[in-house]
């Protein structure tokens, strides 16, 4: 446990040592802020629910996907390229500890990156005339789902990063894979309306967000994402281990 914490702290500080972390955060928050403004002005004409105001913008989700790709692409690829993975994995630490620590660090960085968007809630509260106009349940469930989806995408991104020593290859794999998951419902035509379509619909993050931002709590996506996280982290550990039997 101690080892995981040491590795976690190193990884998290590594994010803040690189300019990429700040650029990612600034760009993400700028775009998220602008699309929030756009939704606010849109709400002058038609009434929008609070969940839609916070999470209803596709641009916001595009930035989430891009940011997660950037956060995760270097994690293993860079250490492989520079060879530091060798000194890391010949220290008395297990491969599982390394993956767990790096995952936790990426997740915390993602949470830090998203945290300032919570200010939008304060802004909304200040400008909402009546108390009953503000329902906090969709806010809480919405953020919970954002974190859960983010956690799953990060696990996938780490897996993509473990496959290669090139950050660009890792980024493309991660971005492609995450996008397919996120927009899985748009591929429903592949299932010809049958069982396949229902599976794709079930996988789609867009559908989950629509539910959760309305305060509807469904346990199925929770199970889906948690098992997905476990699966891809396990796969990443196995890929790291594969140096042993290649």
């Amino acid at each position, binding site marked *: 446990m101690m080892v995981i914490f040491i590795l976690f702290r190193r990884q998290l500080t590594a994010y803040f*040592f690189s300019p990429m972390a700040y650029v990612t955060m600034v760009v993400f928050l700028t775009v998220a802020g602008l699309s929030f403004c756009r939704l606010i002005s849109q709400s002058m004409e038609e009434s929008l629910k609070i969940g839609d105001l916070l999470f209803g913008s596709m641009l916001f989700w595009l930035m989430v996907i891009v940011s997660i790709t950037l956060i995760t692409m270097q994690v293993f690829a860079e250490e492989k390229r520079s060879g530091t993975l*060798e*000194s890391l994995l*010949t220290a*008395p*630490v297990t491969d599982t500890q390394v993956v767990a620590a790096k995952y936790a660090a990426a997740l915390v960085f993602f949470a830090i990156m998203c945290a300032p968007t919570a200010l939008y809630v304060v802004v909304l509260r200040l400008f909402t005339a009546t108390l009953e106009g503000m329902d906090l349940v969709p806010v809480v469930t919405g953020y919970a789902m954002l974190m859960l989806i983010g956690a799953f995408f990060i696990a996938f991104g780490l897996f993509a990063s473990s496959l290669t020593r090139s950050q660009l290859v890792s980024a493309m794999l991660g971005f492609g894979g995450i996008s397919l998951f996120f927009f899985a419902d748009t591929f429903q035509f592949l299932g010809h309306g049958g069982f396949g379509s229902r599976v794709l619909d079930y996988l789609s993050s867009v559908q989950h967000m629509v539910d959760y931002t309305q305060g509807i709590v469904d346990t199925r996506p929770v199970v889906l994402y948690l098992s997905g996280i476990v699966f891809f982290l396990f796969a990443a550990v196995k890929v790291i281990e594969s140096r*042993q039997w290649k």
Partner: protein
Amino acid sequence: MQSDTDKRMIQVSHLTKRFASTVAIDDVSFEVQRGEIVGFLGPNGAGKTTTMRILTGYLAATEGRVFIDGLDVFLQSLEVRRRIGYLPETVPLYPELRVDEYLTFRARLKGVPRRKLRARLEDVKEMCGLNDVARRIIGQLSRGYWQRVGLADSLIHDPELLILDEPTIGLDPNQIRAVRELIRNLGRRYTILLSTHILSEAEMVCQRVMILHRGKIIASDSPAALMGLFQGNPCVVAEIFGPRDAVLPQLKNLAGVARVSCQVGSEPLAGAGSLPAWNRFRIEAVRDEEARAAVFDMVAQNRWALRELSVEKRNLEDVFVHMTAQGETNGDNP
């Protein structure tokens, strides 16, 4: 039996590592005793790095077993890694950290308790000469310091065994000298296995050298013994002033002399064998001491002159070329 195992730091038996299409290490067995400085010598691609990676648990062997301090590297990997300080060939460091920060991170990672941390840090910085750069950012250090930080990292948890992969590669001559000196000093406290493709380095630093070629150990002995083993009969070189036609038969008749050859002298008249001139003779003897004394006596009796009488030194380079060339021929005719 127990004390026997205690003396062995590394025990490798029938180690084989196959990659998809190549055999990197082919049925290698060796032992390293506690306190030894052993060098792996071999051309690039001989299997040095792969062997070291298996010893440190980074790669798994295809066949064979490796014990470090009596522990199986595959089954008790973490225990083994605590006992090993490993410096990979590329010396991977995090360039954005300061030297102190990096060493602290590595120390904590390798389980150095917090209360001992400061003392350990001071120790290795002192040993590796890093006190001047402790607050510098690693990415801005010169290659020599970079190497020393890597070495300090491998020492930080006070391991029993140091495994150093090409520790002097890419350094300038002064830095090489400093690092070799450092390794020799470390040899008093640690068991060291290092790899190199520079023969003089192995000769200077190591007590024992293992020559690795195409994944096999083709020789293992002290540098001196290796040189003695493969230079054939010891040779004496003598430069004698006298008529070649007279000197040559007399040299051949000396006791203990196996073969004599004459290298044409540098003097213009050396060509004429019957006239006295400076000639260089290469005398292959069974035992060099006797040959030298006998040569001197012979020259004195004939009242010729002598301006050089030396034992021809061969270095590991010759041994190495000799042995690997042999391997080459074997490889061509399987």
